């Protein structure tokens, strides 16, 4: 069982960006169509921005304001599928026996975005990059809590997925559109308190449907308990008064 404060959060999906957008979406969810749009990230100098993938941009766009320029905050990057766009392009190169782009290769590794965050924000502390199953979000929060347990006063957790190439249809069924959720969490901050507990799932695993991290955004708005069964695990999120 984990108790933590969610001191700030930001999220992005195509057409849903600021707090008002998310409040409206939480009240009345609507289908989201991914047309490849991405945040401008014009707070990043052009020479650095050119190396930000779409996935990296949505991460920077949401996480950036959660970290002050004068503080060091541990960073947890979580993505089940990672840089599928880079991976698919490289598989295509390999199929054509063409040499791989060194830049693409370097930026395709799972901790590349955490590395870019570290460089762009001057963060010299811990950073973690994880990939899990459908409960990647919960595992990321467990990871962040471990960092808080080691003495960090706050941690940033970002879960992000990019709509993959058509070729992944039938293989990736839980990313209907690109999205990211960034949280700033602590053990003793001023934000709303939430309890995450893990039990055994004895029922079936539900179909993928809506991205789980976005269900959590709705729970945040409504202050409502959220259940997340996956295989043998059953995660429960509860607001604590």
């Amino acid at each position, binding site marked *: 069982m984990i108790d933590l404060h969610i001191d700030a959060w930001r999220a992005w999906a195509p057409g849903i960006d600021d707090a008002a957008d998310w409040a409206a979406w939480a009240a009345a969810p609507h289908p989201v169509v991914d047309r490849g749009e991405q945040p401008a990230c014009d707070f990043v100098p052009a*020479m650095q921005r050119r*190396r930000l993938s779409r996935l990296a941009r949505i991460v920077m766009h949401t996480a950036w304001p959660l970290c002050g320029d004068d503080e060091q905050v541990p960073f947890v990057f979580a993505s089940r599928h990672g840089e599928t766009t880079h991976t698919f392009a490289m598989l295509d190169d390999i199929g054509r026996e063409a040499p791989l*782009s*060194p*830049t693409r290769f370097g930026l395709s590794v799972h901790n590349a975005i955490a590395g870019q965050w570290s460089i762009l924000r001057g963060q010299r502390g811990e950073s973690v990059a994880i990939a899990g199953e459908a409960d990647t979000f919960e595992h990321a929060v467990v990871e962040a809590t471990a960092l808080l347990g080691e003495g960090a006063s706050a941690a940033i957790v970002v879960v992000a997925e990019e709509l993959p190439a058509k070729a992944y249809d039938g293989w990736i069924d839980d990313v209907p559109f690109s999205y990211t959720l960034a949280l700033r969490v602590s053990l003793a901050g001023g934000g709303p308190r939430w309890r995450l507990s893990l039990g055994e799932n004895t029922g079936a695993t539900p179909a993928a449907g809506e991205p789980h991290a976005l269900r959590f955004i709705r729970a945040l708005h409504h202050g409502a308990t959220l259940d997340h069964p996956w295989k043998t695990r059953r995660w429960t999120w509860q607001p604590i008064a």
Partner: protein
Amino acid sequence: MNDLERDIARLIIETLALEHLGVDDIAPDQPLFGQGLGLDSVDALELALALQNRYGLKIASDSRDARRHFETVRSLALYVQASGSACAS
């Protein structure tokens, strides 16, 4: 700037995603790396690959001359010309 130099400048912009620059923003004698345009070692690898694909240039990474050839757009153009395969498109 001659045609080959323009072609190389365009290749640099496209290959290295320098979307904020136009061909005329890269002077033929402007240093590409470090204090000049600001390219780094990853760019050097990427550019070597692009030059190989476009002009058939083979550039050994341990070549002592590579650093000199990669100094500016002009030095790259001279190198492409000297290699005698500048007609590729």
